[in-house]
């Protein structure tokens, strides 16, 4: 059987992920995939018979820059804060204190089971007003961080609980304190496990910041919508919008892959 296959080896064999694949296989395959994707989109755009009007959108380029910078600032603040909230939530859910566990459980379930749009409206117009948080940017970062924190808390908890129980017992046996156990045993292993879902969650958070436009936060999506309203150039306004988010999310994916490789080791 094997020899028969070897004799009439398909001309497409290089497309298979294979140890014997030639050096150029990966690059050529990428080219093929990208060409197919471009062809598909070129065909759909051609069918649209769209009259491009980039000049009108170019006149509003300053709005895209302001919006992008606002999105970067919002996302950075929310990324850091949601990471902290997530870590605290994960620890609270493993706390020996019952009320702490239950509060963390309630928080995670309430956030995960309701749409972000509803949370933004309730937290800004009802809770925020009652607490005197009038600044919509501060409120926006807080809401986004609370939203992301619930998901990150679960990711971190899964990472911590993925570390085998026998390891914790071994750590205790060699006399490590709980803090030392977290520092030297749990954390390095959990980090490796949670990096891929964490990167995905951070990328979602950046994209979810677009929903803050409902409370008139002047971020990237809001600006693209305004430019669309001024110029009626939907595609010309939304294509730079997509590019603006890619510019933020692609580096994050790249950093996450780098970190994954660094923390990868033989077990």
């Amino acid at each position: 059987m094997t020899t028969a296959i070897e004799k009439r080896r398909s001309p497409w064999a290089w497309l298979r992920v294979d140890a014997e694949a030639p050096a150029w296989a990966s690059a050529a395959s990428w080219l093929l995939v990208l060409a197919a994707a471009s062809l598909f989109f070129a065909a759909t755009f051609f069918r649209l018979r769209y009259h491009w009007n980039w000049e009108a959108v170019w006149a509003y380029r300053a709005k895209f820059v302001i919006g992008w910078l606002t999105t970067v600032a919002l996302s950075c603040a929310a990324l850091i804060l949601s990471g902290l909230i997530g870590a605290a939530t994960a620890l609270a859910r493993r706390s020996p204190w019952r009320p702490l566990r239950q509060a963390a459980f309630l928080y995670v379930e309430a956030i995960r089971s309701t749409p972000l749009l509803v949370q933004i409206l309730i937290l800004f117009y009802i809770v925020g007003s009652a607490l005197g948080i009038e600044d919509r940017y501060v409120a926006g970062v807080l809401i986004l961080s609370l939203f992301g924190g619930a998901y990150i808390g679960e990711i971190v908890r899964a990472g911590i609980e993925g570390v085998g129980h026998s390891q914790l017992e071994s750590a205790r046996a060699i006399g490590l304190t709980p803090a030392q156990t977290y520092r030297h045993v749990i954390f390095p292993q959990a980090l490796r496990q949670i990096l891929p879902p964490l990167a995905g969650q951070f990328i979602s958070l950046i994209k979810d910041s677009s929903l803050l436009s409902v409370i008139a936060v002047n971020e990237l999506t809001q600006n693209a919508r305004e430019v669309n309203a001024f110029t009626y150039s939907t595609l010309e306004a939304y294509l730079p919008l997509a590019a603006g988010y890619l510019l933020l999310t692609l580096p994050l994916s790249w950093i996450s892959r780098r970190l994954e490789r660094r923390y990868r080791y033989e077990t």
Partner: protein
Amino acid sequence: MCGGRSGGQNRAIASLLRLLLSTVLVVALAACHRPAGPRPLVVGMELAYPPFEMTDAQGQPAGVSVDLARALGVALGRPVEIRNIAFDGLIPSLQAGKIDCILSSMTVTPERARAVAFSEPYLHTGLALLVAKDSPIASVADLDQAGRRVAVKNGTTGQLYARDHLTHAQILVFDSEAAAVLEVAQGKADAFAYDQMSVFKQAQRHAETTRALLQPFQQEAWAIALRQDDGALREQVNAFLRDYRAHGGFDALGERYLPEQKAAFAKRGIPFVF
């Protein structure tokens, strides 16, 4: 490598390709298919602007513009199909040929006139302000100051006015009328710039927290928007509008949908919209 599995894979790929090809064919055929009879008149509107464009309790389109669209359909002898599209997506939809006309309380502006062709106006109104009940603001001139926050709805003439004339104030852009009203009611925004009739209606609904400054600071006219190369339909629409007005159609719409506004405008000495 095992030959048997490889053969199975080839078969799987072949059947996948067949499936893909047949899907493409079905989609292409469906796109070519045209039903018999007169072509429906596809009217685009955002069903979020009562009583002009809204949905009734059964979820069906209703309101002044819906009645007007149906009357237009009867006059043209074509069935009417109403598409619910967000306001800022209406003109792109018209340009892309997804709809035949826009009947969505759309104000005629020079910017829009570059993108679409307008019929003769069928309604005249103006921009007004919704302000907080205890607000010191007396006119639109009071808003053009640093520290003032003006709420507008995205894609409306209120937004264009604020962009061009209220350059010192902070402009808050919302996707929905309800959010902009809430901002004023909570004191997060100083004013909401919107059309007279909506401002009147919202001030009535939120009487404890807001009041209306109805004297219009910019006159506006609403018209039906059509594609610029669709001159034939534009002629038909204009003829219909003249005929509809002559036969009292607009007066009847005002009586049916806006009796309170009509009375309130008469009391304040502001001319009614139709």
